[in-house]
C-alpha cells in the first residue's frame, strides 16, 4: 500500500504502522484508519501551506463574476458591442458565480481551520509586511461575490447584514494597520513596510464603499471612500519614491505590481457608485489606472524572473486587469464613442484570457499549487 504524500514525515509513520499490524485480522479497520489518518495528514499538510495569498484565486473569480454581472445587467449603453455581450446566457453567469462561491467557501473554510489549528502561523503572516495585506483578500472576495450575487438584490436585508459582516473585519484591520503606519516603532513605519501589496488595504476600503453605495448608504460609502483614498495618496507617494530600505519584495512576487493600477480602478468604480455616473473624478482615476497599466505592460523585463515557474503569485495578474475592464465598461457607457468601446473590448478580452489561462495553468500544474518551497510560505514559516 503506497500512499503518495507530500509531507515526508507522514510516509515514515505510515510505514511503521503498517509493519506493526500486518499480522492482525482486522485489516479492514486498519485500512480505514489509514485512510482516515492519511486524510488528516494531507489536510494538515495543506493547512500548513495555505497562506492568505491563495485568496488571489478567489479574488480573480469574484472579479470575473462581477464583471460578467455588469455586462449582463440592463444598461443604457446602446452600442452594438455591449448589446452583443449582454446576450451571454445568464446560466453561464450563474455557473461562474457558483464556482466562485465554491472556491471562496472552500478557501475560507480551510483558512478558518488553519486559524484554529495553526494559529501561530497565521499570527506570523499577520506580522509580515506582505502577508498582512493579504488578510484583506478574503473580505474583498466576499464583497465581490456579494455584489455579483444573482439572487441578492442590493436593498434587501440579507445584503445589509452581509455587508456589515464583511465590513467590520475590514475596518478593524484598517485601524490596526493604518494606525501602525504612523504610530508604531521603526519596523512598522510606512517607509519600511510599504510595498505594492499594501494596495490591498486600500482596495478593501474602496470595495466596501462601493457595496455601501449600491445599498444606498451614501454616508458610509463616502466615509470608506475617503479612508481608502487618503491612505492611497500616502501609499502612492511612498511607493513611487522607492526609498531605499523599503519595498523589499522578492522577485517572485513581482506580479503584485499589477495592484498599482488595481487601486485607482476600484476607486473609479466606487466613486461612480457614490455619485451615480462616471464623472470627471472617476474618469481621472480610470485614466490613471490605464496609464499605470500601460506603463507596466511596457516593462516585461520586470516580470521575467517571476514567470519562470508557476506559482500562486501568478494569480495576482487577473484581478487588476478585471477591475480595469470593469472600469472601461462603465467608461464606454458614459462616453459613447468607438474608441472607448474598442478599448473596452480589448480589456475585456484580455481579462478573460488572463483568467482562463491562469485557470488552465493551475489545473495543469496542480502539484505546484502547494509547493514545498513556496517563496511566501518560506518567508513566513520560520
Amino acid at each position: 500500500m503506497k500512499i503518495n504524500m507530500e509531507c515526508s514525515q507522514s510516509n515514515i509513520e505510515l510505514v511503521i504502522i503498517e509493519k506493526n499490524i500486518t499480522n492482525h485480522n482486522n485489516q479492514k479497520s486498519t485500512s480505514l484508519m489509514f485512510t482516515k489518518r492519511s486524510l488528516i495528514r494531507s489536510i494538515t499538510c495543506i493547512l500548513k501551506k495555505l497562506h492568505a495569498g491563495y485568496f488571489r484565486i478567489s479574488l480573480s473569480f469574484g472579479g470575473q463574476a462581477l464583471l460578467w454581472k455588469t455586462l449582463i445587467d440592463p444598461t443604457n449603453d446602446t452600442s452594438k458591442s455591449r448589446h452583443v455581450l449582454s446576450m451571454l446566457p445568464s446560466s453561464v453567469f450563474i455557473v461562474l458565480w457558483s464556482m466562485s462561491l465554491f472556491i471562496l467557501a472552500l478557501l475560507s473554510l480551510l483558512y478558518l481551520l488553519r486559524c484554529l489549528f495553526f494559529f501561530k502561523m497565521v499570527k506570523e503572516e499577520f506580522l509580515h509586511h506582505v502577508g498582512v495585506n493579504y488578510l484583506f483578500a478574503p473580505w474583498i472576495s466576499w464583497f465581490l461575490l456579494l455584489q455579483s450575487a444573482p439572487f441578492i438584490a442590493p436593498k434587501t436585508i440579507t445584503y445589509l447584514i452581509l455587508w456589515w459582516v464583511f465590513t467590520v473585519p475590514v475596518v478593524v484591520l484598517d485601524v490596526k494597520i493604518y494606525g501602525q503606519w504612523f504610530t508604531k516603532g521603526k519596523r512598522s513605519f510606512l517607509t519600511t513596510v510599504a510595498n505594492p501589496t499594501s494596495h490591498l488595504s486600500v482596495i478593501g476600503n474602496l470595495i466596501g464603499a462601493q457595496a455601501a453605495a449600491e445599498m444606498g448608504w451614501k454616508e458610509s460609502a463616502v466615509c470608506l471612500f475617503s479612508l481608502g483614498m487618503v491612505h492611497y495618496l500616502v501609499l502612492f507617494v511612498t511607493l513611487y519614491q522607492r526609498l531605499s530600505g523599503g519595498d523589499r519584495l522578492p522577485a517572485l512576487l513581482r506580479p503584485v505590481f499589477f495592484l498599482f493600477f488595481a487601486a485607482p480602478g476600484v476607486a473609479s468604480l466606487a466613486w461612480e457608485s457614490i455619485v451615480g455616473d462616471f464623472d470627471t473624478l472617476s474618469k481621472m482615476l480610470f485614466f490613471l489606472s490605464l496609464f499605470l497599466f500601460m506603463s507596466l505592460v511596457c516593462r516585461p523585463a520586470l516580470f521575467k524572473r517571476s514567470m519562470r515557474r508557476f506559482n500562486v503569485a501568478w494569480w495576482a495578474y487577473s484581478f487588476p486587469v478585471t477591475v480595469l475592464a470593469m472600469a472601461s465598461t462603465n467608461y464606454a457607457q458614459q462616453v459613447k464613442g468607438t474608441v472607448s468601446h474598442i478599448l473596452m473590448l480589448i480589456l475585456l478580452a484580455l481579462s478573460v484570457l488572463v483568467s482562463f489561462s491562469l485557470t488552465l495553468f493551475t489545473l495543469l500544474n496542480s502539484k505546484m499549487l502547494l509547493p514545498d518551497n513556496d517563496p511566501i510560505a518560506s518567508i513566513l514559516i520560520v
Partner: protein
Amino acid sequence: MENHITLEIIEQASPPETPSLIKYISSNELEDFDEFDSEFPSPNSKESEETYNHQRKPSISVSMPLCYKETQLQSLNNNNNKNVSFSGENVIIRDDLASGIAMSEPPRQSKFKSQPMPKGVAFQQDGYQTGKANRNHNQPGIKMFRDKRFDSFKTWSGGGLERQLSILRGKEPIGNAQDGNNVTRSFDRALPVDRYFDALEGPELETLKSSEEIMLPHDKQWPFLLRFPVSSFGICLGVSSQAILWKTLATSPTTEFLHITPKINLILWYISAVLIATIFAVYILKLLFYFEAVRREYYHPIRVNFFFAPWIALLFLALGVPPSITKNLHQSLWYILMAPILFLELKIYGQWMSGGQRRLSKVANPSNHLSVVGNFVGALLGASMGLIEGPIFFFAVGLAHYTVLFVTLYQRLPTNATLPKELHPVFFLFVAAPSVASMAWAKIQGSFDYGSRIAYFIALFLYFSLAVRINFFRGFKFSLAWWAYTFPMTGAAIATIRYSNQVPNIVTKSLCIALALISTFTVMALLLSTILHAFVFRDLFPNDIAIAISDRKRKPHKHWLGFRYGSQDSKEIENYLKFVNTDDSSLDDSTPQPSSNDTDHNLPK
C-alpha cells in the same frame, strides 16, 4: 626603458617636487613587485607604478610607458600584455574595457605588445603632447588626430565613414578593425546614474568634481555639436511662452485697457517658430553625428528632463498661434504632439516606479517638473481645441505624478543627491506646474472654478516665496538652461490674467501687470546676457563636461603616496568594479588577492 624615468604627472595639484618623489618610489617598488611578475612581465610592473589620470594637465614630459590600473588588472586577467601602455602620451591601451579610456599611440620605446591605437577611441591628449604623439605614428595630420579624440562620441556611421576614408587614403593605423569593435562595445552600456552623481556637482550637475577627469580634451574647444546641450531647448520654452503671454494680454477682456497690439504676439511667434526650427535642426544633427553624446545626456539625471522641452515648446507654439494666422487648429495635431510626450512619460515614470538606480528618492530634482508640466500643457492645448477625454487623461496622469514629485522635493530627502544646496533659478520650475494646471483645469471645466483657484493660489504662493528670496539667486554661472526657468514666471503671469478675467478687480489687474512686467523684464535681461555671452565672451556653448565623464572614479593622487594597502585597495577595487558591467567578465576575476596589492601601486593620481 626602465632607465627613462621621466614621468608625466597628471594631476591638478601636482607639486613641483613630486616627480622626484615618484621616481624614488618607483625604483623602490621594483623589488616589491617581483612577486607579481608571475602574471605579467616586469616592465609592466614598472609601468604599474605610474598610474595616471587620463586627464592630462600641463605636465612634465614623459618617456616612460604608462599604464592604468585597469590595464593592469586587465593584463592580470588575461595574462597578456595587450593592455599595455604606451609612450609618453599617457595614452592607455585597453583592449576591451568599455570605458573608452583608450589610447591611440603605440609606445615609443615600448617593448611590449601594445594594443594598436583604436582609431575611434582616442583619449585626451595634452596640448603639447599632441606633437609628440603625432610623431610616433602615422597620424594623417592634426585635424585627423583631433577628430579622433571625439570619435568615441560619434555615431557609429560617422566614425566608420571616417575610417573608410582613412583606409582609402592608406593611412590607417594598425588594429583599427579591432578598435572599432572596442568603440562600439565601450559605449554599449549605459553609464550608471551613480557615476553622474559622483563625478559632477552643482545645481545643474554640470561642474566636474576635482577628483574626476573627463574623456575628451579639457583644453581644446570641442566640436560645436558636442557643445550643444539639450537644455538649449529652454530658449524655445522661454520665447514661445512670451508669445503666449502677449497674445493673452492682447485678447483678454481685463487687459483691454492696456491696448496691447497683437503685432507683438505675431513677431514673437515668428521668432519662436524660427528658433524652434533651428534648434531642432541642430539637435537632430547632433543626434545623427554624435549619438553617444545624446545618449549620455539622456542618462544624465537632470538633462533627461529637458528631452520633454522640445515637445512642450511645440505645444506652446500651438497655444500661442496668433489669431491672424489661424483661429482653429486641427485636432489630429494634438494627438501628434502628445504622442512623443506619452512615450517619454511611460519610460521615465516607469523608471521612477521600478528602476533600481533611477528611483525617485535618489534622482528627484526640480528639473523633474519639466517631465510633469508637459501633461498640463497638453491638457490645456487639448481643452482649448475642444477635446475632452484626452486632456482629462493627461491631467490625471500629470496630477498624480506631480503630487509624488512635489512631496518628494519638499521632503528634501537625505538620500537625494541632486537637490541644489543653495537656491538657484531652477527652483522657479516649482511655479510652473500649478500655474499651468490651473489654466488647464479652467479650460476643461469651462470656467476658473475652485479647483483652478486652489492650484493658482498654490502657484502664487510658491512664486512669492521664491521672489522674496531673490537675494539668494546670486553668484551662479550663466547657462542656457536658465531660459527654461523663465517660462514658469510667464506661466504665472498668464494664469493671473485668466484669473482676473474671472475675478476682475483692482488687485488682480495690478497683479497681472506686475507679473507680466517682471516676466518680460527677466526675459529681456536673459536675452541680453545670452547675446553678451555669445558675441562678447564667446562662451555661450562651453565644453559640455557633463557628458564626457569617465566610467570610473579616479582616486586622487595623494592617496598612493601613503603606503596604504589592504582595505584601501579592496575598496578601490570594489569601487572600480562597481561600475564595470557584467559583460566585462574578465575584470570580475580580478578580485583575488595579488591584484589588490598591485592596484595600490597603480592608484591613479
